[in-house]
């Protein structure tokens, strides 16, 4: 890079849209030396995921997963969140964009607002809640949802009584209620000018408005709800508090129907693409509904069950077998309400053509995604090209790059996808930006200067207790003076006072001042939850020179005043107990030093396929040395046998280009014909020895071990030359083979997939079949193609090609796994017999070529590599990521990442995205000179340890290990502080910092002391 170009690039990034994809990109970038500006239309970040109750296929609570990420993004020193904001113009070029942002008035001063919510309680104006999809209500001054970030209310100008009064005289109750003086009816909004090196678009998508399809009755029949409404119904924090009931009469429904593809896969009044997620969320909703109320009988009306993701087919099987979910293959043509009962009559045709009317208590419409209404203008503002449906245009070989240099895209704006793929693209886009702005990394970030830490070892505890009123949030229920008095005489307490808002800037200063004046060496703040405020207060006391672990937060708001309203006496007593427990713990607190470990800024990548090479190039462009280990004599992997993508791009050309780039890159070393022999170390500090004896030191590892194709044994494969695989057909077509007129190709799908023992979808085979079928028909329309399939899984925008194949005359015949096609050969004739469910009789097809769509398997080396790096694999042999939703490229052990077919079957664009994600995640680690180890870790006392191996066997992170002397030792760098080791250790050799047994026992004692009359 020349000096000139260095000086013109900016080390900051704009992210447009604060959903889960944008947040992932923001955190990865901000954690690795880039300043991030996040622009979000809504008053809070969070996007679509925050509205969901649970997520498939694990049933994890969506909010529990996303909330910590939102808090982290909200508190990050290098993430600036601009809400109620929209970009109005983008000028300049890649590396140095000038962006103008318009911020709508919030009418609440975010600097003054403490998020206490007093204004909301007093606001008299109730409006329908858009977050609860109009099933619940909110106020005119509101927060989008309880866990909103930033935790600042906003006034809805269209609803506020005061703002709608020209004289601004009406109401003003919120202004009176706000003790912080944060309400500002004269807010005019403002404009911002940002200078950034790169832009990431993650605006998410809108949902199809199912009212358009009037025959389904949404908005007309009360008990027809959209799927997103049903998510809110299921949510414990939703309008019905998690009780499944009908909107019309609150009756608990028994028969509930889900109708799939509402607004998707439909060229009339709707969208032609598949929304990719509805089959799975309907399955999830039916399972969760049944878990809420076992009397519910779910039926899912669907065209094709597209359970194409990792472990999705198993989930659907569970729904069928364990939850009695009925899957009915039919399109519902109309829904009518039965007069008087609110019940719904569904009309549909069964597969054999019979017309059926069936009654249900409630109907859920599985609505799909579509671009926002202003998508055209949005693309124009950023100067990017879209496809015909107004999604951002990308190439399968560069799935996060838009048409404009320096502007990237992530999430469903690139095409419909689920959460893990959005998160993958989020990290992937971060990796791409890191590579693009490598030389200006660290130039615009803010760092905090801190005073030296005061040594308090050996001092008697001098605890300062600050009891917060939180405006009236706490003080209207808890008598603050009584709490102050009760705590005063507690041993170790040197100073107690009250404060109106502990978190407000002036009170923070007061706390710092008091620490110095009173010579405090421990601080307890009694206010709100540690989950949102602990870090803030820890920083406060650190700024006053105290070790940040000499702090405890007593939660007397969320866990006391807010839930015991009107019970002032008992609530006060409980608050006293909670504060005494904190004081008891605080007394035993000790300063903790966060250790740091150095980082070797190099990466090892196992596997030289497209995943490995993509990750290598991205990391090398970021400036890190990369070693690719490939056991074959040459790079390429499975993709060597793929010629065209579904949209017709030349894969071999792409592969050649990648191999060339890898070989030429000065930072990449390729080791072919070798494998890993031995490996050791931990995040930042790995050492790997190869079978050729060479030793490599590196800070991160990416496992890109790839996959292989299933070699079929069924359907006469290998017994006659006319039975081939899709890959073999593809090769003949690529070599210019021309299908003969009148020749008939019969293709059988799901060969070696979706049945025991391989109960998973290989994801690529439907597209392989359709691509080859289209190629045949385009070369010779007089050739015949019949695809015998179970479900055609052309998810997302791939649906176009399914339609194209049908338009070209490709015939699709469905089969069931219980009635698999029978293949026989007589002479040179291949006969395929299969049941046709539409005709309700057996079909006998003569085939010139029988083409088998064979599935994928993990590469055999996965087992060995997995064992060596102690990473788990799922029952199908694929690597198991740290979390299937939010950590799709991480392993539980830090510093290890996964990409490509070793993780699960996927297409080229998805492999590239995951490889970029792995490079982004690895880049976060490698960009640090040192990594700080958390203070909250388990400490191991070796002199107490009996090496019984209990800890070693139960630790999910592999931090206990058998040392060279043969006894158990503990690697604190790997420790996440969960304390499972401490719970199981029979020798009590482990104690978790700040959660030590003596501290917990002291809290228990304090909890009981504060209940006089109960004990003794």
């Amino acid at each position: 890079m020349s000096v000139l170009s260095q000086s013109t690039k900016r080390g900051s990034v704009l992210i447009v849209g604060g959903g889960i994809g944008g947040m992932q990109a923001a955190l990865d970038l901000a954690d690795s030396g880039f300043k991030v500006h996040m622009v979000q239309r809504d008053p809070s970040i969070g996007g679509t995921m925050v509205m969901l109750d649970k997520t498939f296929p694990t049933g994890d609570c969506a909010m529990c997963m996303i909330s910590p990420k939102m808090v982290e993004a909200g508190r990050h020193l290098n993430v600036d969140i601009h809400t109620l904001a929209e970009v109005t113009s983008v000028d300049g070029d890649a590396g140095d964009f000038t962006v103008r942002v318009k911020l709508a008035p919030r009418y609440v001063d975010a600097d003054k607002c403490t998020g206490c919510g007093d204004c909301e309680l007093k606001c008299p104006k109730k409006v329908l809640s858009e977050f609860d999809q109009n099933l619940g209500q909110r106020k005119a001054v509101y927060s989008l949802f309880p866990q909103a970030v930033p935790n600042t209310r906003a006034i809805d100008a269209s609803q506020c009584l005061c703002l709608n009064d020209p004289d601004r005289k009406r109401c003003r109750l919120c202004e009176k209620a706000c003790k912080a003086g944060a309400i500002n009816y004269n807010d005019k909004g403002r404009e911002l000018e940002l200078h950034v090196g790169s832009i990431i678009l993650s605006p998410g998508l809108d949902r199809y408005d199912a009212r358009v399809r009037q025959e389904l009755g949404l908005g007309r029949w009360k008990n027809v709800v959209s799927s997103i409404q049903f998510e809110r119904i299921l949510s414990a924090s939703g309008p019905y508090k998690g009780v499944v009931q009908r909107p019309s009469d609150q009756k608990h429904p028994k028969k509930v129907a889900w109708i799939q593809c509402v607004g998707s896969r439909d060229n009339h009044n709707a969208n032609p693409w598949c929304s990719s997620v509805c089959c799975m969320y309907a399955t999830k909703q039916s399972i969760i509904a049944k878990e809420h109320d076992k009397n519910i009988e779910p039926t899912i009306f669907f065209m094709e069950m597209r359970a194409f993701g990792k472990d999705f087919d198993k989930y659907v099987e569970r729904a069928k077998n364990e939850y009695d979910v009925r899957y009915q293959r039919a399109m519902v043509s109309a829904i009518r309400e039965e007069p008087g009962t609110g019940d719904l009559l569904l009309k549909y045709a069964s597969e054999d053509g019979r017309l059926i009317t069936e009654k249900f208590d409630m109907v859920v419409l599985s609505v799909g995604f579509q671009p926002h209404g202003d998508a055209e203008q949005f693309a124009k503002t950023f100067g990017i090209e879209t496809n015909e449906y107004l999604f951002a245009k990308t190439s399968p070989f560069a799935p996060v790059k838009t048409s404009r240099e320096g502007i990237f895209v992530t999430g469903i704006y690139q095409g419909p996808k689920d959460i893990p793929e959005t998160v993958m693209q989020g990290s992937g886009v971060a990796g791409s930006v890191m590579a693009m702005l490598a030389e200006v990394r660290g130039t615009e970030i803010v760092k905090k200067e801190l005073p030296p830490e005061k040594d308090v070892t050996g001092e008697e505890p001098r605890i300062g207790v600050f009891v917060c009123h939180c405006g009236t949030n706490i003080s209207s229920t808890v008598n603050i003076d009584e709490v102050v008095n009760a705590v005063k005489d507690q041993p170790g307490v040197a100073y107690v006072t009250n404060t109106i808002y502990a978190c407000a800037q002036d009170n923070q200063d007061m706390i710092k001042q008091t620490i110095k004046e009173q010579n405090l060496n421990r601080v307890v703040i009694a206010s709100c939850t540690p989950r949102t405020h602990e870090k803030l207060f820890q920083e406060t006391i650190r700024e006053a020179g105290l070790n940040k672990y000499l702090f405890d937060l007593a939660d007397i708001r969320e866990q006391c005043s807010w839930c015991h309203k009107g019970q002032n006496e008992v609530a006060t007593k409980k608050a006293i107990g909670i504060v005494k427990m904190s004081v008891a713990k605080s007394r035993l607190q000790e300063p903790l030093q966060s250790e740091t470990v150095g980082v070797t800024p190099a990466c090892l990548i196992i596997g030289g396929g497209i995943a490995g090479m993509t990750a290598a190039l991205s990391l090398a462009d970021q400036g890190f040395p990369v070693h690719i280990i490939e056991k074959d004599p040459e790079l390429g992997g499975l993709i060597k046998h793929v010629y065209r993508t579904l949209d017709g791009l030349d894969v071999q050309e792409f592969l050649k280009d990648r191999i060339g780039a890898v070989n030429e890159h000065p930072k990449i070393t390729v080791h072919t014909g070798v494998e890993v022999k031995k490996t050791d170390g931990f995040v930042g500090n790995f050492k790997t020895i190869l079978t050729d004896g060479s030793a490599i030191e590196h800070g991160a590892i990416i496992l890109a071990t790839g996959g292989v194709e299933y070699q079929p044994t069924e359907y006469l494969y290998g017994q006659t030359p006319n039975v081939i695989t899709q890959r073999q057909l593809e090769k003949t077509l690529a070599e210019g083979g021309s299908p003969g007129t009148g020749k008939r190709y019969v293709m059988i799908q799901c060969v070696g997939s979706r049945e025991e023992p391989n109960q998973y979808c290989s994801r690529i085979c439907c597209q392989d079949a359709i691509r080859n079928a289209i190629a045949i028909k385009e070369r010779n329309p007089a050739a015949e193609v019949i695809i015998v399939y179970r479900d055609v899984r052309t998810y997302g925008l791939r649906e176009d090609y399914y339609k194209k194949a049908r338009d070209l005359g490709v015939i699709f015949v469905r089969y069931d796994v219980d009635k698999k096609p029978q293949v026989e050969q007589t002479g040179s004739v291949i006969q395929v017999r299969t049941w046709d469910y539409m005709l309700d009789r057996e079909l006998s097809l003569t085939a010139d070529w029988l083409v088998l769509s064979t599935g994928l398997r993990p590469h055999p080396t996965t087992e060995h590599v997995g064992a060596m790096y102690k990473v788990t694999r799922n029952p199908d042999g694929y690597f198991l990521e740290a979390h299937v939703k939010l950590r799709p490229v991480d392993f539980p052990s830090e510093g290890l990442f996964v990409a490509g077919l070793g993780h699960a079957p996927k297409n080229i664009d998805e492999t590239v995205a995951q490889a970029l994600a792995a490079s982004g995640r690895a880049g976060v680690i490698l960009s640090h000179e040192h990594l700080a180890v958390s203070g909250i870790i388990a400490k191991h006392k070796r002199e107490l340890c009996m090496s019984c191996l209990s800890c070693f066997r139960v630790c999910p992170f592999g931090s206990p290990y058998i040392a060279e002397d043969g006894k158990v030792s503990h690697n604190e760098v790997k420790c996440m502080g969960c304390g499972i080791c401490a719970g199981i250790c029979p020798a009590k050799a482990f104690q978790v910092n700040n959660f030590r047994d003596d501290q917990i026992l002291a809290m228990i004692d304090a909890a009981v002391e504060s209940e006089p009359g109960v004990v003794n």
Partner: protein
Amino acid sequence: MVDGAVTEQTGVSTIEKPREIPEGWEPNVLAFACHYCAFAAADLAGVMRLSYPPNVKIIRLPCTGKLDHIHILRAFERGVDGVFVAG
């Protein structure tokens, strides 16, 4: 407890003795909650202003796997009437 030393005599006097249940008695409940899920759920209950009896106090753990038998036993010895472990 340290190897090779008899622990301090902590029992006897602080153990709650069984007695008649007085009228209007409310059990004193102690909850051990995982920071990431159950503690967050307790916070959410507050945010949603759900009302529940105030006779439960929460001790936050980094994970319920951290819980030790002795925590539960100590609570009961001291006279806590119910222990709720959530994670």
